[in-house]
């Protein structure tokens, strides 16, 4: 009797596992800065966002089995490239997402191209990823330096800030941002009086700020991000820069930075983002779920980009019923329009650029903020077809005339 039950049980198990074995196994790797200066804008929050996306997609219903792994690329291209290579070669990872560091993203871009696996850049900014370095395996999500330059840069030049001095992070991102913003400044009748580049993750900006002060430029453009931006602004206050009539332009600012600076210091900063937690009910709902793992913090547009990217990727894989050929999956992702609760409807262009509207925000004054996280007021909406660099202008070899 017992033997029979046992056999029946075993048979049942075998049958269920037999059904399971037909599920397509997909492995997603979240490669981010887990402990450094970009950890707050990406980092563990990105892993949470990816998990939420997988939850919402409900893999079982589509015949998929999704696993998420994560690693710290420590803002070093060789570490990032090695993790990517190991993930692709040995650990059967099918897709890498996030990488909020342009230097690392460019390196991983090459590895993904070589191994023909999908790479969704939702954290890094360099517009080269859809320009000269574009790849049939890579999609650039969320934002890029061109969008930032044409959002924040244009707005400031038009409102009277016509002389600029740049404080640039000395790597791919900083150079790309300075280059794109300079183009906008010059196109709108402004002048760049000078620039100085600082090493990534600098703690003491005093010497660079002194140079910015000496230039007498109306706008000090901060072509850096995360911890570097926070330090530049804080130390600028210490040296009395803003009281001397000069204005900081935060070319890339996230809500996590505003949280660290505090509204008193950050008020009045103009910035461009593509997602704000408090704009729609869907955003607020996502934020609540995300905050279950990160109390007291608010998701940034990078986190939203990870969510959106994972969702769209899984849809493409489910439609193709295969995940191993990177080019095929990316082609499918470009074919299908994007649609998710956070970014709404959009599309992926031939050069790998996702297209959706961008928003110009201004940081509220402390007295204007009614509750924690109520940091931004909307100044303008930039329509999707204007927000990103025109397709033909990037120099991407994938774009045929």
């Amino acid at each position, binding site marked *: 009797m017992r033997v029979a039950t046992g056999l029946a049980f075993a048979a049942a198990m075998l049958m269920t596992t037999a059904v399971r074995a037909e599920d397509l196994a997909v492995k997603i790797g979240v490669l981010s800065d*887990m*402990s450094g200066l970009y950890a707050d804008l990406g980092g563990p929050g990105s892993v949470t966002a990816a998990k939420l996306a997988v939850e919402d997609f409900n893999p079982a219903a589509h015949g998929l089995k999704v696993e998420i792994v994560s*690693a*710290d690329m420590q*803002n*070093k*291209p*060789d*570490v990032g*490239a*090695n*993790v990517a*290579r*190991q993930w692709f*070669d*040995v650990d059967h990872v099918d897709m890498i997402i996030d990488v909020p560091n*342009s*230097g690392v993203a*460019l*390196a991983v871009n*090459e590895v993904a191209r070589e191994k023909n696996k999908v790479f969704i850049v939702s954290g890094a900014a360099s517009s080269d990823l859809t320009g000269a370095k574009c790849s049939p395996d890579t999609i650039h999500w969320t934002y890029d330096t061109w969008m930032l330059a044409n959002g924040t840069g244009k707005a400031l030049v038009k409102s009277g800030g016509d002389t600029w001095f740049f404080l640039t992070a*000395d*790597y*791919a991102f900083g150079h790309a941002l300075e280059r794109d913003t300079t183009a906008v400044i010059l196109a709108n009748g402004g002048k760049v009086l000078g620039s100085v*580049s600082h*090493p*990534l993750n600098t703690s003491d900006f005093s010497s660079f700020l002194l140079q910015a002060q000496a230039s007498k430029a109306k706008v000090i453009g901060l072509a850096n991000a995360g911890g570097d931006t926070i330090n530049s602004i804080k130390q600028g206050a210490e040296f009395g820069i803003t009281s001397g009539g000069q204005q900081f332009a935060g070319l890339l600012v996230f809500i996590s930075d505003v949280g660290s600076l505090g509204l008193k210091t950050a008020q009045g900063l103009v910035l461009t983002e593509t997602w704000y937690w408090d704009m729609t009910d869907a955003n607020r709902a996502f934020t609540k779920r995300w905050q279950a793992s990160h109390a007291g913090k608010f998701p940034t547009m990078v986190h939203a980009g990870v969510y959106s990217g994972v969702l769209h990727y899984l849809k493409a894989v489910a439609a193709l019923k295969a995940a191993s050929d990177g080019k095929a999956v990316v082609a499918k992702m470009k074919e299908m329009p994007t649609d998710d609760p956070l970014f709404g409807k959009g599309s992926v262009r031939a050069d790998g650029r996702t297209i959706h509207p961008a928003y110009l925000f201004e940081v509220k004054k402390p007295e204007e903020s009614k509750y924690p996280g109520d940091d931004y007021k909307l100044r303008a909406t930039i329509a999707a077809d204007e927000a990103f660099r025109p397709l033909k202008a990037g120099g991407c070899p994938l774009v045929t005339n």
Partner: protein
Amino acid sequence: MAAIDATALPTARDTGRSTAIAAIVMVVFLVLAPFVLYPVFLMKALCFALFACAFNLLIGYVGLVSFGHALYFGWASYLAAYAAKSWGMPIEVSIIIGTATAAALGVIAGSLAIRRQGIYFAMITLALAQMMYLVALRSKLTGGEDGIQAVPRGRLFGTFDLSHEMTMYAFVLVVVLAAFFLVYRIINSPFGEVLRAIRENEQRTISLGYRTERYKLIAFVLSATLAGLAGAIKAFVFQLASLTDVHWTMSGEVVLMTLVGGLGTIFGPIVGAFIVVALENYLAPFGQWVLVIQGCIFVACILLFRRGVVGELAHRLHVRL
């Protein structure tokens, strides 16, 4: 007084037999391993093994502790990568260019550092390496934080396509084994005898009529050149040359590898390199614990375990390894 603790150094007579056996074991392992282990991991270990052997030449046989060996490793890597990517040189030529760069840097750094002894020597090598790190940080050639990416491997001698990992592995293995053999010949030559004499008692060696400064400089340049060869090869294994290769932590790592393996032994640096690279690979998911564990190994080696793995083994078996 000898710079390095004499009790830690091999004392058994070199019968040549133990060395031959160990060498055969090593070659067999290295030939068969890529079919079982991840070839990229093995290539990384081989490059570091060569780097550690080069370093050991200086610390184990001359008794000079260089804390700035990443200078040669990293800059050879940069120049080799730059030659391949920007000048379009084939891989053989690029590696030679990288190695030559390291040799040149070795001559300059060596002639400055040799002027002082002991601790000062170590501090000068460290400072010079740091200076060149800061140059690499801001230089257009090295690409700063981004490094030199997408270094093309191309075809070896125009025929062998190195994009296949196994072909690349075969190339790396042949070069590194040849370099190991070169190091072995240097150690077991009259030149090597003089180096050992300098390590034991420099004053006495001078009184015997040897120009020790010159010997030390030659050993330094040889060490730098071989370290450069390792760096140049590594640039092609990973197709990337970055700041990590010139940072002082890289200098520290090679000290660690040699210490763990065994100073002044032939196979010590090789074993040490494999152990440390494997450790880092295994510990990578644990984030910054790698630094802590490396530090603990340093402390343990200095306090308790000065002979290192191979040194301890050799001591127990009364052979020279």
